[in-house]
Structures are given as C-alpha cells and as structure tokens.
C-alpha cells in the first residue's frame, strides 16, 4: 500500500471538490478498494471518504419508483420491504453476493464500481491491459475459466463480477451522479459500464471525480422475479453464470446475464425472444460470443440456467 492522505467529506459538493485533484479516489465500504490498495493495484494519493454524505436512505420517487442512496449498504437494500415486495430480483441478487459481513459494509455505488476478479489482474507480476495498459492480456492464453465470453475484446476478456448490477440492469435502473463541476446527470445502468475494446482500463462512463449519489428504480413492473446464481460452491463465490429475470404471465419479460461479460448482459432483441424459449434467447444474447478452451462451457451453462429459470417461473 502506498502512502495517501485521507479526508472525510460531509456533503456531495464537498466530496467532488475534494476529489478534483488527480490521484484522488472515493472510498465507501472499502471492501474492494482497500484490497486493491494493499496489492498496489489501486494507488490513490488521496482518499475521500463518502460514508457521511447522508446518501444512505431509500426514498420513493414521484413516478412511483425508488431512489436508493449511493451509500445504502447491500444488507439494508436487500432487506428493505419495498425492495423485497416490488423488486425481488434485486433483493435476491444482493443476498447471493459475498457474505453477510461484506454486505454490511458494501454500498450500492461501491458494488457497481467494484473491479474485475480476473486472477491475472490481481497478480502484479503478470501482464494485464486493464491494470497496465499495453502490457498484454495474460488471461486469453492462460487460465480463463471465470472470464468473459461475450462483449470481450482481444485486449481483455474480464467480467464484471457484481450480482447486484445484473438485477439493476434487468430493472432498467438509472445512476444519478454529480460531476466535478457540480453538475448532476443521469446515466442508465446499461450505459455505466463500457466494453473493453482497446482500452480495458477505461471501465465506466464516469468522469474522473464524478460521484454517484443514487440509483433510481422505475416503477415496479411486477412479474415473477428470479435471480439464479451458478457457482462452484454453495455460497461465497462469484458467479460462473447468473440469470436475473422478470417474467410476466403472458410469457414476455426481460433477462440479464451475469458472469459472462464486462457488464451485465442484456439485449432488447433477446428479451423479445423470451416467448420462444431459452435457446432462442441465448442465441440472440450470445451471437457474438468468443470463448476460450476454459470458459466455453459458459454458453451451454447460460442457456440451461435460463431454461431452468423459465420453467421455474412457469411453476
């Protein structure tokens, strides 16, 4: 860990002002950032603690949705009665992630911005374009069992590891931010995470110093809401594949897939195939898939998991 300075901001405006210098970073629960700092994968020179910004409430929005403060803990979000009633897929996705202790610390914004779990990203001796642009990607020819099969590039095949983000994607959530100049904006979750292309180090649409203040959910869409996470052990593991689904009685619905891409993976065209079943949806979702010897199983696994979710939803 490199030496850094620390300050605690009391308002969003103060936080963005404090983070305006290069090398500054926000810290929320710290469950991802601190691990990365210990390994010097992240080396901020200034930490701006955002835990006291008062952004830790869940409020109804005027249009009947919910506004989730950026600092709401994963545990509290999963347990919120409105979330459990109207956005069950979100609650289930959160509870499928990490462990009780981690969820008590982890925040909504921090969870969205957690970084990949590619093992080579974590080993600073190894080339990694995401960690050190231009150094190469060790994973493509290396051990890639956990890594992505779609939306990936020749430069990086990492996945985004969040469970919560997959549910937010299927719910069409929107991220609210404040930029360094004080202006606010809204970014659909769909547009928050970027595909790697030639610049896998650029992971989100956020500008430097841009603070997430909230995530809003549109009004409830009903339906059967399922989150199915497939992993090598029963708990405390990242998804090999996960499926977030909201399915309506008429066979229509939406699905997003986790564990397969640099962002939660969903397409309108694939949603439209839902009445035709899992195979049709999977064909649409994975049309451009590029697999390795290690991770090719994710394609049949995703399709089969989707089929199981669809048949479970039908009851």
């Amino acid at each position, binding site marked *: 860990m*490199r030496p850094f300075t620390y300050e605690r901001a009391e308002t969003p405006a103060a936080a963005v002002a404090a983070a305006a210098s290069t090398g500054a970073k926000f810290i929320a629960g710290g469950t991802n950032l601190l691990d990365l700092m210990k390994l010097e994968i992240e080396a901020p020179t200034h930490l701006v603690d955002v835990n006291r910004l008062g952004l830790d409430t869940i409020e109804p929005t005027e249009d009947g949705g919910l506004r989730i403060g950026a600092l709401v803990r994963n545990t509290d979000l999963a347990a919120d009665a409105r979330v459990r009633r109207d956005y069950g897929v979100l609650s289930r996705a959160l509870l499928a992630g990490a462990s009780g202790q981690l969820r008590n610390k982890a925040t909504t914004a921090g969870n969205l911005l957690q970084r990949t*779990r590619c093992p*080579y990203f974590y080993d600073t001796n190894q080339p990694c374009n995401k960690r050190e642009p231009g150094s190469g990607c060790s994973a493509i020819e290396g*051990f890639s069992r956990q890594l992505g099969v779609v939306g990936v590039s020749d430069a990086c095949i990492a996945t985004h590891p969040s469970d919560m983000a997959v549910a937010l994607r299927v719910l069409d959530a929107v991220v609210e931010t404040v930029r360094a100049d004080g202006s606010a904006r809204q970014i659909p979750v769909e547009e928050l995470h970027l595909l790697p292309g030639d610049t896998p180090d650029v992971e989100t649409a956020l500008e430097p110093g841009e603070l997430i203040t909230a995530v809003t959910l549109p009004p409830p869409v009903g339906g059967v809401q399922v989150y199915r996470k497939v992993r*090598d*052990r029963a708990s405390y593991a*990242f998804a090999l594949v996960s499926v977030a689904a909201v399915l309506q009685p008429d066979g229509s619905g939406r699905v997003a897939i986790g564990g397969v891409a640099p962002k939660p993976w969903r397409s309108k065209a694939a949603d439209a195939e839902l009445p035709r079943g899992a195979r049709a949806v999977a064909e649409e979702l994975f049309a451009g898939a590029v697999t390795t010897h290690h991770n090719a199983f994710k394609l049949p696994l995703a399709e089969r998991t989707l089929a*199981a979710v669809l048949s479970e939803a039908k009851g």
Partner: protein
Amino acid sequence: MRFDTPATTNPIDQMKVVGQAIPRVDGPLKTTGTAPYAYERHDVAPNQAYGAVVAAGIAKGRIASIDLAAARAASGVIAIVTAEDAKDLGKGDMNTAKLLGGPDIDHYHQAVAVVVAESFEEARAAANLVRVRYETTPGRFDLEAERGAAKTPDEDSPETAVGDFEGAFAAAAVKLDATYTTPDQSHAMMEPHASIAAWDGDQLTIWTSNQMIAWSRGDIAKTFGIDKDKVRLISPFIGGGFGGKLFIRSDAVLAALGARAAGRPVKLALPRPLIANNTTHRPATIQHIRIGATRDGRITAIGHESLSGNLSGGSSENAVQQTRLLYAGADRMTALKIADLDMPEGNAMRAPGETPGLMALEIAIDELAELTGLDPVELRILNDTQVDPEDPERPFSQRRLIECLRLGAERFGWAGRSATPGRRREGRWLIGTGVAAGIRNNMVATSGARVRLDADGIVTVETDMTDIGTGSYTIIAQTAAEMMGVGVDRVLVRLGDSSFPVSAGSGGQWGANTSTAGVYAACVKLREVVAQRLGFNSGDAEFTDGSVRAGNRSVTLAEAAGADGLVAEDSIEFGDLDKDYQQSTFAAHFVEVGVDAATGEVRVRRMLAVCDAGRILNPVTARSQVIGAMTMGVGGALMEELAVDTDRGFFVNHDLAGYEVPVHADIPAQDVVFLAGDDPMSSPMKAKGVGELGLCGVGAAVANAVYNATGVRVRSYPITLDKLLPGLPEMVG
C-alpha cells in the same frame, strides 16, 4: 520404554479418562482469543520489527539485477537482506528449493529478499519498491507434457510386482483399464505461515507455527550453519497445518535473517497470495489403473501406475501405496514415475499418497462393480483380505473393513439404492449415492515426554509434540490423568517447544498414538519414582482419585511429590510389530449428492464415515478430525484445484477467492461412527490415528455418488459442473 510385544492390560484400559468425550482442554483459550499464535507473540521479545517478503515474479531464470535504492530510502526501513547478503545460507534437509532464492530462481514466488521496517505497513510498502530485473529461461510446467521425460523415483519401493500381472490381466474375463487425474492442491490452512525470530548473540529463538519441532530445529540449524543447541523453536498453537507446516518455510528463515541484519527481533507472516506458490502443495497425479476380475467379481490382477511431478530432487506423490494393501488379487503391480517440473515444491498434504491414490482407485472399484454387475459394497467385501496381499504370511494386526462397510450400508440406508444411474430425481435435483473404502497406515516413531508431579499434586507434561488443531493437548492430558489417577483438571500440558523431549510430532496421523504412548512411558516411570519414594512395590501401587494406594496405605500425590516435586522422562520406542503385522486403519465412506439437472452444480446432501482405528482416545476430538477430513474430501472432489498456467509456470488462483474450499453451506449433516475396540499391536495406548483416515476415500465416494446421480463418469478431479454438463439431460424451456 520399548514396545516390541503386543500390549497387555495396563492402566489405560481403565478408560476412566481416556476414551471419554472430554471437551478440548484448550477450547476456552481458543474461543476467547487468548491462545497465543506465532504472529501474536508481542510479549516474548521486545522491540519487534516487521519483515516483508519480496517474492520472485518469474518461474524460472536468474536475477539480472536488484535495485534496492528506493526501498532503502523508504520510510521506516531498517534492513534489507537478499541472497547476495546471505551467501553462506544453507538449505534444510526437508526443503527442495532454497528458501531465499537468487541469483537463480527455482520457482514462482520464491523469496528473493526480506525487507525489515518499523511497521508492517512500511515493510510492505518498501518491499513493493524493490525492483528486480529477471532473465527468464524456459521451464517445464506441464505434467502431461513431461510424461515422456519422467523417471522412476529414487525412493523406497517405487515399483512392486507379485506374480504375473500382465498375463493375468490379459487373461481376465472382466477388465477395467482407465486413467484418472488429480490436480495440485493447496493446504489452505487458516493461519498463514508466521514466525518471530530473535537472536541473543549466536542463540536463535523462533516463535513459529510448525508441526515437527525437532526436524525443523535441525533444519534451521543446518540452514544457518549453527549448532542445533543454539536453536530454540516454540510453537504451542498452530492454526492448521495439513502437512504444509511439517518443515521450515521462508517465514522462519527470513525472519531470522532479517533479525540478524536489523539487530532486533523480527516478525513475518506470509501474505495469503504468496502461500500457494511460495510454500508446498499436494502434487497433481496422472494415474493408470488396470484391474482384471472373474465374472463373479473376484479380482485376479490389479495394477496401478502413477505419475507426479516436482522440482528436481523433490519426492514423488506415492498414489499407489494403498493399492498394495486394500484388495486381494494374486497378480499385482504398482509403479511410480516422477517428472522434473519448474513449478513450486510439492510435498506432503494430509494423507499424502492415499488421498489422490484412493480418489482414483475407489472410482475404479466402482467401475468394476458396474462391469461385473455387483453391488459396490459387496464387491469390496468379496475382495477383502486379512493379510498383506504381497506377503500372505504377514497378517493385518486388525482389519474390520467388512464391518465398516456392512454397518455403514445399514446405517446409511444403502439397500434401496438403484445401481442404474440417473434414476432418482427430486424436483431439480438428480440424486445419487456412492461408497468408497478408506485405508491409512498406522505409522509409529519414537516419541518422548517428561512428566512432573508437584507439591500441589498437579501433573505437568512436557513434550515437543504439537497441536495443530487436532486435540493433542486434550488426549495427552487424558493419558497423563489416567496414568496418574487424577482428573484432566489436575494435568497441565505444555507442547511445541524444542527444549522439551522430542516427540514424533504431528504428521501422517501418527501423532495421537505415538505422542500419548510417549506420555504413557514417562508416566510409567513417574509411577515408579512415586512408588519408590513411598517405599511401595510399584507393581502393587494403585493410582486413583489423586492418591497412591498399596495395601491399606494411601498417600495423596501432593504429599508423595514433596516440596521439590518429582520428575520422570522417557520415550516410547517401537520394535518390529509393525513389520510383523501390517497396521492400518480403515473406513467406509457413504455419500449422497444432489446434482442440479440444469446446471450440473453438485451439492452433498449427507455423509457417513464408519471408521476402524483401534481405541478412540477421545470421541469428541476424533470426530472433529474425521468431519474436518470429510469436508476436505468434499473440497477435493468438487472444487479444489491449483490452476496451473503452463506458459508462465505458476498457480494462478493463489488466494482464497480463487482457490475455493468448502464453506458451511457446502457441508451437510455428517455422521461418524467408530467401531469399538482396541489394537494391542499399535502401542500401549492400543490406538491408531484417525486424522488422515477421515479423508481417505471421501473424494471417490462423492465421485461415485455423482455418477450414480447422473450417469456421467468423471475421471478428472475436481468434478466441476463443466465436466458434467455434456452428459446431463436435455433441457426444455
């Protein structure tokens, strides 16, 4: 005390304390966080500085240059030691690669420097400022690819043959011929390797976490080129070892080097991401098994060959040894091969040899059952042997595998099982059951102890035996209590200090039987000393309820001890009983799994182990050992694999996020039964080990249950869902 004839009746047979379900005597220390582990010994040496390891970033090659300027200038740095500064550093007998590398690099994450600083954070930050330039050379990282270059290892019995295996196999009516693989595995113990080292002149003391005090003291002495008497190792509590702490590792050596350079005590722990590649692991195997049988299931020919790899000069993983003993069959052979690899050092991990060997052999037996149409329990019973199959003159001291299998089958509800796979389904789950046999030998080695009796009637036992979470403190206290006629609350046990008598240590499941037998020997001596002092005939003296009685005279132990107390020391030395009789422990493992029909996720639903392991010294600690081992077996069967990057030459998933071991949610109800009885051939304690037996065969029982659930036979561990998917039922939806 020599033990060379079968044990007769002795005070342990009273079983007033031994054999009772006594909770761990060190339990309160552990649950209150007051058991002092190595890294927490802030109290033992003043002015401790912190060491941080710099580990090699390549697998094979040379250090071209090391730039220490930035690190030296960093805040808090006191000293930096590289191989350049420690030219005369030797290597212990038990280590294959040097624990401080350079200029040659033997494996990934081999230590190349230690940085000592005032605080942990400063040491770690400065270690990251050390700039090492390497020249890499090509290495051999792929076991399969090195198969052609493999040699017969230079070890005891690398090849065995009885009769004419090839001929009998060729002639057999039923033949099984299959290849199985097991991956490299990490011990993944909870406590990382950690040491505090302090020099007092040329006297070195290391507070560490180590299973084998005497071996390790010797290896520290050898590494530093000093006399053994100048070295003291102290390791009273160990947060798990599983064989990963049998020997000294870089934490101890670097702490000592750092302390010498800094002129202060230095503490150092290996960070988790270094442990997989810096320390040892269980080597991967590729095993070829051939079994010939008659149509009615009698084995006529059995052959088992296994290939493993290691650093040049390292040992092989003896995966074939139990095939020599487990089943009958007139014509038999085993063979080991070893390939040189430039991967980290392979070495013992819990039940070394047996674990991977039985993971393969006990699938093969399941396959043979299917080929012959026999029930897998019955096939095993049919091929049981009461003598060493290679030497029929040599019986097992005791072998109740058949009882284990029969009792297990009954208790588990084996009878209703469908032999045809894929027949049972509950909702999304395909359900299957599997069985496997386990065998682990009872090894014996000299073990000593000192026993004191003080004026308060307190019995204190001192031995360099270790407790790696196994319960040594408790069973040793029970042994001394039984022998001296007191309760465990009157016994104080002190372990893990090289200034105490040398014990057999913790390894190979020999610790419980041999260390308590050593305590028994010392207590026999102490009883004589007590009797002598009181003028009793030691044969007549009875030690009960805190007193010694002979005829109608009774004296309390406190009185007998007198103001100065009494002390006796002895060790148990074993004769040839283990040569005349094959001494082994046996188990039958039964497992039920559910396999998700869509995703192939395997979840264990219930487990049963029935064990035949001589006298059980304490059913609570023994059960803990076995359920822990069963848990490890589930890990080995379903998830544990050090993933090898065969280009870059290292284990990629080198932390506990990447190397998955079972969590609570993976482990269902576990049932353990110990067959009652004792084995007078093993020691005066009539006990044998259970700690490794509990693991032997578990993996195969899980694998066989998965097969029974799905009809997919996976011969390559771990059985992850990607290997099952192609064979699972079609999905509709």
